[in-house]
């Protein structure tokens, strides 16, 4: 299995040599530790789509003032005088961006590139990435949480709904994987 071993001469920004990813169990334990600290200190887990949701609400409020106050779903995020960004999910998202950036920098993985299967064009890949993002986010809002907020965080505190959801994510992906095999392989 060669995915863990990038080409020896690969370099990222500032010519930092690309280092291999850590062993998945080590990565898992580390991520678990972060998740545990989040719950222990703050009683909340991790999340990504919630913070982005609030960003969208702010943009919408700026572009179409008043619209939020007529949409019940957005109302509870940013209705009236409420500041949609005043929520714990926002600093978590900002921190995650920074954490990913710093790790990419010191491990030589800051590189402008498009990761894709060998048989698809860049254009197709980017189109599919956008489409996949839109589908994923729609499902995540419907399920009240994404892979981080529901599967990971809810999974660790043994929420029944989160476990059902987690199984469904894998089921949905595996069900479609066969048909997209040419796209990724």
């Amino acid at each position, binding site marked *: 299995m060669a995915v863990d071993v990038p080409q020896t001469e690969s370099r990222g920004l500032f010519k930092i040599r690309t280092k291999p990813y850590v062993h998945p169990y080590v990565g898992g334990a580390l991520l678990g530790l972060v998740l545990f600290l989040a719950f222990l200190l703050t009683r909340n887990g991790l999340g990504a789509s919630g913070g982005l949701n609030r960003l969208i609400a702010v943009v919408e409020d700026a572009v179409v003032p008043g619209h939020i106050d007529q949409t019940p779903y957005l109302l509870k995020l940013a209705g009236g005088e409420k500041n949609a960004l005043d929520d714990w999910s926002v600093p978590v998202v900002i921190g995650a*961006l920074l954490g990913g950036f710093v790790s990419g920098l010191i491990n030589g993985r800051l590189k402008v590139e498009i*990761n894709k299967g060998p048989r698809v064009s860049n254009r197709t890949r980017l189109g599919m990435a956008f489409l996949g993002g839109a589908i994923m986010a729609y499902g995540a809002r419907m399920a*009240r949480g994404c892979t981080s907020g529901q599967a990971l965080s809810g999974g660790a505190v043994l929420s029944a709904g989160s476990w059902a959801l987690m199984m469904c994510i894998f089921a949905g992906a595996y069900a479609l994987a066969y048909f997209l095999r040419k796209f990724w392989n």
Partner: protein
Amino acid sequence: MSLFPLEAFLRPLAENPWTYLVFGLIGFGFGFALEISGFGNSKKLAAQFYFKDLTVLKVMFGAIVTAMVLIFLSSAIGILDFSLVYVPETYLWPGIVGGVIMGVGFITGGFCPGTSLVSAATFKVDGLFFALGVLFGIWGFGETVDLFWNWWNTNSYYGRLTLMDVFQLPTGVMVLLVVLMALFMFWGGEQLERIFGKRDLTKEPRLRYAGAAALVLVALAIVVIGQPTSAEKYARVVLTREVEGEKVQFSAEAVLEDRYVQVHPGELLDSLADPRLRVIMLDVRSEADYNLFHIRGAQHIPLDEIASSLPQLQSLHADNVVVVVMSNDETAATQAWRYLVAANIPNVYILEGGINHWIAVFGVDEVGIRPASTPVADDALGYTFPAALGDRYEAADPDPHAWKLDYTPKIQLQRRRAPSGGGCG
């Protein structure tokens, strides 16, 4: 009170601006851990679904079981109050449908929202496009959720439901089972990698066996120690009451003894009529007594099943919810009160004097309702009824405007905890 979660995080964050920094640092660790695991690389993520590289499964379940055993170990030794930990509420069908849609998006785009952020942060263009797609999808959901608003909000809602509730297992046993299941999946994943990804398992670090053994040992320790009982948690409860303008802290037993939470029937009636309050009445008597007579709107939940009310009560986030428990006198209601208070349900009160007192106030003149001819035992129904009419007596639903009663108001709304909601909420 347990030490964790920290008090500051139970209040609105703006009261303690440093809390934002803590969340920022947690986010940093989150992004960092995702990146070093290879989650910024869509090819690595998608490989999961062709059985070549099960990094996603290993990292995800590795993280879940690591966090899980630490959380429940902390709870077992009493440093973390699990009832304060946010557990995503179960909306079963919206979760199932949303989950399948997410799976489709995952394999189409190669990321989930969190990993796409990390990918974009390391300049991967496909990650950036996925993240933009996420923003579009979120916007699209906000604009279309009205079409299925009712389904989304009410269908198959179970509140704060855990796997322990579903399988009726002690927490430690459930934790151990999840650890064993994860280890089995890791083993199976490695076999798949050997077959489909041509991976040489002999080169895998031996240390992973030690990690597996450590997980099982901690899980066993959680089984042996057990989670704090309701009585243990109750002994640690501290309640704040406003007495003559001053905030005073009491133990739960002191609150009971000083009768700060026993509300007069008149106050309950006025509260029911108060549009600013949402009063939930829990009638913990026997089914027979409940069928004979109960206050209109009271839910029947026998004392020995009070635990089953927790998933719903713990997920009520509104500030104006008041829970009033009642029995014939006060004994059973007080038991229920102790249980709910131990579980950190805010604003729980007891109907003073119970149903017997209620009828003495509102049902004295009602035809058919008669005091029992012989003295009754404590917490038994002190009246006889011509038939089991439940809430169809006049005294079951008195007109609040027809009664002017003198009572000392007891209900003081405690502000609920800062809104939590999932990271994705």
